[in-house]
């Protein structure tokens, strides 16, 4: 089981009436934490719900830890801790009682559920508020109690749907820190869905970008970081297209965004060669900067409709 991918999608399609929400998704994802990015309506929540067995695939299937979502949904749910996007609580219940109830529904015996509920509430930082009714909690506390109930039964896969929704900056930082801690513990895999690039970038190793129900881009952020592939971003005083063709002739990988040129230098080529080439054609380089391909760049390219696949 150790080497099994966390999530596998096999030609997975989901259709609501005539509307095809997820379109033939394919892929195998094994990262400790997997990010699910996409604009509103891209199909992130539908994909999560389908993986949990709430929606039936209209075609294809998916697997979590090797178990088919069509046939083993109960077994899969035993391994999953789910933190939904929207408010989910019983207003009259105290935090501790709510988490304990959900722990027991996950199969924990009563005493263990109580013990784990206390631990989970302390872990997320709600130890002092655990005997208060959930209806009196602030938005940030409600998010944290959702995280506590997702953790109480010790899941193998933690699914977080927009975990920082509605949080102020300090609460958001705290939530991301918790997610990071859980990830680093190495005992649980995380699937984090968000439309906030920063959240995914700091918390995830792999990123799936969904666009209109399709995987627009799959990116292994960890591999990108390891490769430390930096590129140079520069701006010229006009003649940007001419300069692009010149440095492409030198073996550079190039992309032009308006007046900005992004380029990766081939081995043996240095920055001074760029200046030399510019000087020969009387082109002024006005700005030059080292950059790393940020998730924002990847996301924007995906949304602009550039070809997907591994970057």
């Amino acid at each position, binding site marked *: 089981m150790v080497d099994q991918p966390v999530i596998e999608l096999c030609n997975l399609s989901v259709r609501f009436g005539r509307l095809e929400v997820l379109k033939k998704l394919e892929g195998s994802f094994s990262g400790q934490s997997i990010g699910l990015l996409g604009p509103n309506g891209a199909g992130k929540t539908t994909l999560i719900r389908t993986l949990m067995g709430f929606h039936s695939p209209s075609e294809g299937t998916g697997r979590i830890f090797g178990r088919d979502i069509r046939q083993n949904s109960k077994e899969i*749910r035993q391994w999953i801790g789910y933190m939904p996007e929207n408010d*989910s609580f019983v207003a009259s219940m105290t935090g501790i009682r709510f988490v304990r109830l959900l722990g027991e*529904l996950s*199969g924990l015996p009563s005493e*263990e559920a109580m013990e784990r509920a206390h*631990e989970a509430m302390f872990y997320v930082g709600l130890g002092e508020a655990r005997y208060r009714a959930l209806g009196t909690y602030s938005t940030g506390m409600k998010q944290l109690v959702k995280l506590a109930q997702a953790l109480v039964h010790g899941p193998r896969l933690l699914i977080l749907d927009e975990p920082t929704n509605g949080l102020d900056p300090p609460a958001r930082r705290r939530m991301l820190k918790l997610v990071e*801690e859980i990830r680093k513990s190495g005992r649980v895999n995380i699937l984090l869905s968000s439309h906030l690039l920063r959240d995914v970038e700091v918390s995830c190793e792999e990123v799936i970008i969904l666009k209109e129900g399709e995987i627009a881009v799959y990116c292994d952020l960890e591999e990108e970081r390891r490769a430390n592939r930096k590129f140079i971003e520069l701006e010229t005083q006009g003649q940007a297209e001419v300069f692009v063709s010149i440095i492409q002739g030198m073996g550079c990988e190039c992309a032009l965004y308006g007046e900005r040129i992004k380029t990766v230098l081939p081995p043996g080529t240095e920055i001074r060669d760029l200046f030399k080439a510019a000087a020969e054609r009387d082109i002024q380089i006005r700005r030059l900067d080292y950059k790393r391909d940020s998730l924002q760049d990847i996301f924007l390219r995906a949304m602009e409709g550039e070809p997907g696949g591994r970057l």
Partner: protein
Amino acid sequence: MAVYKRSYQAYQGRVTPRSLRFLVIPRFAFQDLLRSRIVLAFFVGCFVAPLAGALFVYLRYNLRALELLQLPLQELAAIDSGFFFFLLSFQSFLSFVMVILVGPGLISMDLANNALPLYLCRPFTRSDYVVGKMSVLVVLLSLITWVPLTALVLFHSSLAGWSWLLENLRIPLAILAGASVLILVLSLLGLAISAWVKWRPVAGALIAGMVFVMAGFAQAVNEILGTTWGNLFNLGLLLETLWSWFFDMESSTEMSVGQAIFGLLTICAVSLLLLSRKLRAYEVVK
């Protein structure tokens, strides 16, 4: 875990059997119910009639007590099908009030703030959820209806002789069957209304309306259309017809047993349909 050692720990211990997890729901629900003084007081009050019945049975078989109270034996009502039918009818009214008190909060509290996805994302199905919630009403209504009445039958048998029980075996069976039908119908109706109406007072009023208003509606249909089919909307009449058949008594309603069964099955089916449409892990937006 000590508070200062805050770190995520996976759970490695044993888990409870999946088939018994629905019992968690009534356990938590009863803890909540016992906190309500109104529910508790009413629940205790529900035993007054069976206790009065037991006292009556005791007097019926205690000639000395009758002499002391100067009550002639001939004037006391007989303890037969009619006696238990009356008690069941009275207890069923109390059951109905209990459903108005308890029923509305059972599901609506989970739906009010969208807690259902958190139940259903676990190895816990919609059926488990409904059975769990329903068992709260089943246990409560059983304690009000067939449990005390069956105890009363046994008490009477112990005084009248066990041959009475053998000769009148139909009575305890009728109590059991009649109460079961009542519990099933009221529980499903209460849960269905609780699932659709989030505001508790309105849900309670709607449950009451299902009996009183629908009885009036049934009468109006009968008067206007010159038929008796309107009785199908009258839950009280449906139950009375069926119980009369169970107790082998003359029914005062103008309805056949088949019509009563059809009406009750329809109520159950509609309630189940309403529950299945509302109890989902996600909101269906069209």
